[in-house]
Structures are given as C-alpha cells and as structure tokens.
C-alpha cells in the first residue's frame, strides 16, 4: 500500500463511529484512575488477574498478559497524555485465531475531572472502542462484556480500596 492510500485508510478509520462507549463515574482523582489503568500491580486487582506491560509512551508497544502469563492482546500506544487520555491499538493474540485474524481495533480511555467545586473528587472515565473490521465481528463481541466488568471492578476498587472477588472473564 502506498503512503497516500495508508493515509486515507487511517483517516477513514478515525472517522468511524465507536462500537462501544462505556462511562463510569468514580469518586477519585484522574491521576488515581490513570495509575490504576497503567500499573500492573493495581491492574491485576480489577482486571481478572491480568496486567499490561508497557511504558505507555506514544509510539511504544503494549502487551496485555493473561493470569496464566500468556499474552491476550497487544498493540501500539497511539496517544498518551497522562492523566487525561490513552489510545492504543488492540490486536487479540494468536491464541484466539479467529479474533486475531480480524485484525486490530482501537481502544481509548478519556479521563475527566468532573468534581463539583467544594465536593469530593469525581472522575469520569469514558472507554471507547472502535475500528472493528466488520459489523458483528468476534473481536467486537469478545470485548463488549469484558469492558463492562473491568470498569465496574475498577470503580469498586478505587472507591472502597477492596478488590472484588475474582470473577471469571469468560
């Protein structure tokens, strides 16, 4: 593919509407949300024992590792603006052949301080996931339920300090 065609593909992908928009309000600061999402020790507490290896800098690779130590998905950090925004590509590992073959999609965290002045800290975390290869793809189904529980677990962890009992990802 030549450079112009690549640019057009990228521009089209950017214009595609998200497949999912998930929002969770958490009584904490944006920095704590960012740290929880990017620190392996904390991640394991709300992400079914899984964590991500990355330095989370724009252009860096990231690999999400399952509780069994094998990679679940990986990709590239497209935009990193701590503690506000983190966008990365999302390719299921080849241990999921069908979803792997569907190619990469894109996930993004938007972290906003929505605290009412004089009130306790409140942060809105918005997760958007887009760029799936086609409607009704397996990858799309695969991530939809997962994100809901991950975000809900994260909220519980940050608000109570207590991780949830382990619930299977499947």
């Amino acid at each position, binding site marked *: 593919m030549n450079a112009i065609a690549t640019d057009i593909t990228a521009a089209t992908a950017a214009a595609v509407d998200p*497949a*999912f928009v*998930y929002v*969770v309000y958490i009584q904490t600061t944006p920095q704590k949300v960012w740290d929880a999402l990017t620190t392996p020790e904390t991640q394991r507490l709300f992400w079914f024992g899984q964590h991500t290896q990355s330095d989370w800098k724009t252009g860096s690779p990231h690999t999400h590792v399952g509780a069994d130590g094998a990679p679940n998905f990986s990709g590239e950090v497209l935009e990193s603006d701590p503690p506000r925004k983190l966008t990365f590509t999302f390719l299921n590992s080849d241990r999921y052949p069908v979803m792997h073959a569907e190619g990469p999609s894109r996930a993004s965290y938007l972290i906003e301080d929505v605290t009412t002045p004089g009130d306790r800290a409140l942060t809105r975390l918005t997760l958007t996931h887009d760029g799936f290869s086609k409607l009704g793809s397996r990858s799309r189904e695969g991530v939809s339920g997962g994100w809901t529980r991950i975000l809900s677990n994260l909220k*519980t962890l940050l608000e109570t300090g207590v991780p949830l009992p382990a619930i*299977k990802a499947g």
Partner: protein
Amino acid sequence: MDMDAVFRALADKSRRSLLDRLFGKNGQTLGELTEGLAMSRQAVSKHLAILEDANLVAAHRRGREKLHYLNPVPIAEIAVRWIGKYEHAQVEALLSLKDHLEKPE
C-alpha cells in the same frame, strides 16, 4: 453514581424499550431512535435525558449529531453487588438455560 437514579430510569417501559433498541443497534441518533415508535420526538428526547442522567446512555458527538450508546456499566454494578463470588457461574448457566428454553422454535 446514584443507584436510585438507575432504578428510577429502569422503572419505565418506554425507557427500557429505548435501551433494547440501543442494545440491538448501538450509536443511534434521536431521529433513528424515534423512527417506528409510537412516541413523539420530544418524549423520546425526555426519556433519553433521564437515561443519560442515570448513566445508562452515553452520548458521543459526531459533528452536529449526537449518537446514543447503551452504557451497561451501572447494570454491571448492580449485578456485582448482589451476585456473589461463587454464584456467578450458576446464574449465567441458569440464564443460558432460560434463553435456550424460551427461544422460539
């Protein structure tokens, strides 16, 4: 997030049917959501505002248009609150059995 707002929002048949429509097709405009419904555009808009306040619907801007997305996170919070560690698999199994048995032939 206020759980009372979630239950109040869910306690209305029209609002549940709007969530069903978003579950069927995520990311719809007000116009698309109103199509084929016996409700006026104003009524749908009012219901959507209540769903948004309860964080059951998330909005995404596309230029001048506003797309509505089903946000199941508050419902997951409800499930997590009352479904225990060991019951999860059993509840899922019962739900799939129910789905299977109720599926039209």
